[in-house]
């Protein structure tokens, strides 16, 4: 299992469109991926789950993955949310 803490830098946080892109990315990996905020963990491949966490800019989340391509998945997803755009 690979996990990494990251502070979300996306200006609008992980809402609607960025969340959709995030989930799309997560779905490209076979690894089971999860996002955790304030002790609540959701499936990173589920857009509703991600949106239910209401992740805003500046908040810290944990991205976790388990599976053959877990490492790449975590790396890529962390990269996505730490971009400032």
């Amino acid at each position, binding site marked *: 299992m690979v996990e990494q803490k990251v502070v979300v830098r996306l200006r609008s946080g992980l809402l609607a469109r960025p969340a959709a892109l995030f989930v799309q990315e997560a779905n490209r990996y076979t690894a089971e991926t999860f996002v955790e905020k304030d002790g609540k963990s959701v499936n990173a491949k589920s*857009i*509703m789950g991600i949106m239910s966490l*209401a992740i805003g800019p500046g908040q810290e989340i944990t991205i976790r993955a388990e599976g053959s391509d877990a490492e790449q998945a975590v790396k890529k997803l962390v990269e996505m949310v730490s971009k400032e755009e």
Partner: protein
Amino acid sequence: MTVRELVDELGLNIFNAGADLTRRITTVDINRPGLALAGYFRHHPAERIQLLGRTELSFLAVMDPREQARRLFALCSYEQTPCIVVSRGQQPPDVLLEEATARGLPVIGTAMVTTRAASVISTFLEARLAPETLIHGVLVDVYGIGILITGSSGIGKSETGLELIKRGHRLVADDAVIIRQVGEDTLVGSAPPLLRYLLEIRGLGVLNAMTLFGAGAVRTHKKVSMVIHLEAWRDDVAYDRLGIDEHTQRILGVDLPAVTIPVRPGRNLAVIVEVAAMNYRLKRMGYHAALEFTEQLRRAIDEHDDL
């Protein structure tokens, strides 16, 4: 669970506005600090909400002012005390307000009589402090049975949910289901507030089941009675053909009846879920088709032997 949520949701009033309403409530128990006010603080359950009724306030009123100040100072000095609640619409004494305000301890009032206040608060806390987990799945009410559909991403959980709504059943939550253990063996599921009545269908996006299908198509929460797990059909797995063995899945320490349904294009999952719900009801009513069938089979073989 903070004091602010308690105040907002039960419509209580606050006596000292500057107090720290972010204090956390960690236990459902409530304490009436009669003995503490009498000066006995050993084993004082400071982490509980402290409820002052008429008895406590009248006891305070007849106390020597210096003694009173000292005990109220002690009562308010615990950082883990979430708040003090004063019942019956009484006005808390000024000394109490001063001491509490100095410590940032909220003093809250309610018009309810003391025992009623205690039961309302603890019922509320029991529901809110119940163990909780978030599960990736769809919760639907099918013929009155709460069915949690689980399975990996893209297997067709939401599509099955949609088909069930079209068939007159009700959606509780799509994709993310909050499950709370409200009793020893009882789990109740609901949608995260942000996602209430929403459903996501690939290709269509986010839909609102309530505005699309009406109020009859949704519910806010439902007891979870069984789990249906969808998984991609694999030829090397032996799927249950008889239904004699009962499988269970454990969620928050509660074992729920569970079935695994293999998914293959062309299988009408909504019908299968509907039938699973009806079969579950039948079993609870005492009729178990699979066992009944094996019993008949056994009898047929016995009769054959006699000939």
